[in-house]
């Protein structure tokens, strides 16, 4: 409503409190919205409801115990968190990881990416009202959880990496099951696309919603699919290859408009690229040991390091300072992609309708466990 009209009718803005208990804030995010009718005038994003002090806790645990704390940050992508942390410590200690372990890590990371994107797709579509996609996506996520369960025994918090390699070799026949899953998943991605990509209502709800230009995205510090949706080719898997990504062939999909629809397309293409990577990693799996030369007592030399990898949500980086004397880190700090991506929310939802707020929270794909840590 125009300003004069508002004065004439003596209207007020409505302040509503979305969350921390709200079905569509993906956990315990709280957004205080000031609405003009249904239009968002401004918003405050309030976080911290799931803060467990993981970084501080880590400074009082030994280096191996921290792996299981990293599970609890982005709890829908525990494997990539594990890999990121283990690689940081390996970098600090200059441990060479055997090739077989690097291949399995790659496969697990990509399986994890598919599982995380399944969860994203399901909840995002559900926020926009397409509830069937939610169950379809969870059906496939279940298959991945089964694969993880067979590999390490856990379905959510895997604790599936060790410094210097892997805790376990892959079970007999596991590789065949993974390849089988790949062929199932390739079909199912088409099924999701059939339901949504050309759906008129889906297009109306996502096209032009929450546009963020490449410059803005970089200025805010976005990473992962939200950044690539704006047309920036930045992917740690390509730019600074870790694990076995330098030996894999894959493309990094990017969007053009930087709206919700492009972020959706980018993630859907990532499903396909992940399947491609998993196939290469499993088919080309080399023989050999699964753990490198790791001392009994893990005690990195004094120094600091930062290492970042591409998690399903974006760039997850670990900054670790070791004093070289104790068996725990002196300082432990995480650069969580969800936290940095969430910064874009107030800017994205400004001027949009209330219904778009939930669509945009879904589009950023944040996990509150990782935002608050």
């Amino acid at each position, binding site marked *: 409503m125009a300003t004069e009209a508002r004065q004439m009718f003596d209207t007020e803005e409505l302040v509503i409190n979305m969350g921390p208990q709200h079905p569509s804030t993906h956990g315990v995010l709280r957004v205080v919205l000031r609405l003009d009718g249904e239009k968002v005038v401004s918003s405050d994003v309030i976080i911290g409801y799931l803060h467990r002090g993981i970084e501080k806790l880590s400074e009082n645990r030994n280096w191996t115990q921290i792996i299981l704390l990293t599970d609890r940050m982005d709890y829908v992508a525990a494997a990539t968190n594990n890999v990121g942390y283990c690689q940081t410590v390996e970098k600090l200690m200059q441990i060479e990881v055997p090739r077989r372990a690097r291949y399995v890590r790659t496969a697990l990371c990509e399986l994890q990416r598919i599982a995380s994107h399944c969860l994203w797709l399901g909840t995002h579509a559900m926020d926009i009202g397409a509830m069937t996609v939610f169950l379809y996506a969870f*059906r496939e996520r279940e298959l991945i959880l089964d694969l993880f369960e067979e590999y390490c025994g856990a379905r959510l918090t895997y604790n599936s990496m060790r410094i210097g390699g892997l805790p376990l070799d892959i079970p007999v026949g596991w590789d065949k099951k993974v390849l089988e899953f790949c062929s199932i998943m390739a079909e199912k991605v088409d099924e999701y696309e059939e339901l949504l990509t050309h759906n008129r*209502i889906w297009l109306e709800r996502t096209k032009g919603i929450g546009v963020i230009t490449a410059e803005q995205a970089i200025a805010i510090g976005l990473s992962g699919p939200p950044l690539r949706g704006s047309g920036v080719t930045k992917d740690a898997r390509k730019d600074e290859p870790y694990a076995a990504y330098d030996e894999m062939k894959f493309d990094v999909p990017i969007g053009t408009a930087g709206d919700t629809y492009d972020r959706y397309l980018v993630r859907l293409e990532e499903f396909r690229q992940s399947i491609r990577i998993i196939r290469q990693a499993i088919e080309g799996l080399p023989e050999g040991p699964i753990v490198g030369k790791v001392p009994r007592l893990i005690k990195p030399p004094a120094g600091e390091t930062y290492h970042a990898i591409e998690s399903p949500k974006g760039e997850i980086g670990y900054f670790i300072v070791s004093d070289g004397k104790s068996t725990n880190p002196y300082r432990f700090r995480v650069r969580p992609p969800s936290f940095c991506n969430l910064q874009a929310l107030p800017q994205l939802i400004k001027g949009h*309708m209330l219904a778009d707020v939930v669509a945009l929270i879904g589009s950023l794909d944040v996990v509150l466990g990782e935002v608050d840590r």
Partner: protein
Amino acid sequence: MIDTYFIPLVKILFVLNATLIAVTYMVLLERKVIAWVQVRLGPMRVGPYGILQPIADAVKLILKEDITPARADKWVFTAAPILVMVPALITFAVIPFGPSVHLFGRDIPLYITDVNVGLLYIVSVASIGVYGIILGGWASNSKFPLLASLRASAQLISYEVAVTMTLVSLIMTAGSLSMVKIVESQFNAGLWFIFVQPVAFVLFFIGGLAETNRAPFDMAEAEQELTGGFHTEYSGMRFALFFLAEYANMIVVSAVATTLFLGGWLAPFPNVAWLNVLELIPSWMWFLMKTFAFLYVFLWVRATLPRYRYDQLMRLGWKVLIPIAIANVVVTGIVKVLF
């Protein structure tokens, strides 16, 4: 005496109870159909294949604590669910389930009454139901329900215009407002009106989805944004009334659509002689079959489509549906005059 009081009373009781049972089983049907679409089983625990689930639900809702929020407007808060439910039920008074049947030496028509403004009655009664939603959201004295009731009122009012305009063209074709006469004129034409007025049928279907607050137009409930919408603050039986009224309205829309467009109790192509075998199936069965087929589409749509946004929905209503409806009236008029 028997004809004026007893028979109508029995019919009213029968229709009312049958409707309420149909409504509760509609809930189960919806859960089952959507579950099948989503490769699930749906309710399976209460009774074989979950067929007793509605009874369990009803018992649960009756036993639930009935909470009135401290700052709610008590009277309006109580009246709102009633105001939603009652119009949905009394609409059935004019819906013809079939022609007369011969029972106990009397001709008993299979409808409660046949008023000569039947369609007008349905349209006006249906619009009363909106008040329940508006008042319910308003009286809750809570922000999410308030937003939802604003959405609901805007949506229902704008879609009522489209639906009513659509009905005008149908009335022109049928030449009557009486529901029974409309079916009879379809018999005389030898053709269901869906073939005569296909555009009107599509418009009525879309408008029907919007008027019953069903997906993809379920803005007023929009669980994801408004956490349940206008009935957020309701609990127990009062919530159940809102909940059931939605299904009752779905049945009303389906029954009206069946009567107006799908030939009511008539078998397909009633004038074709060699299709007379179809009339072995009793007329009321035809009516119920068509109504349920229509209801199934409601559920199917809900399982498939995402939700429109509030402003897009209004745009669709005012800028697309209403102009098409008006054009349809004009074309119908021209055709009527020329032929």
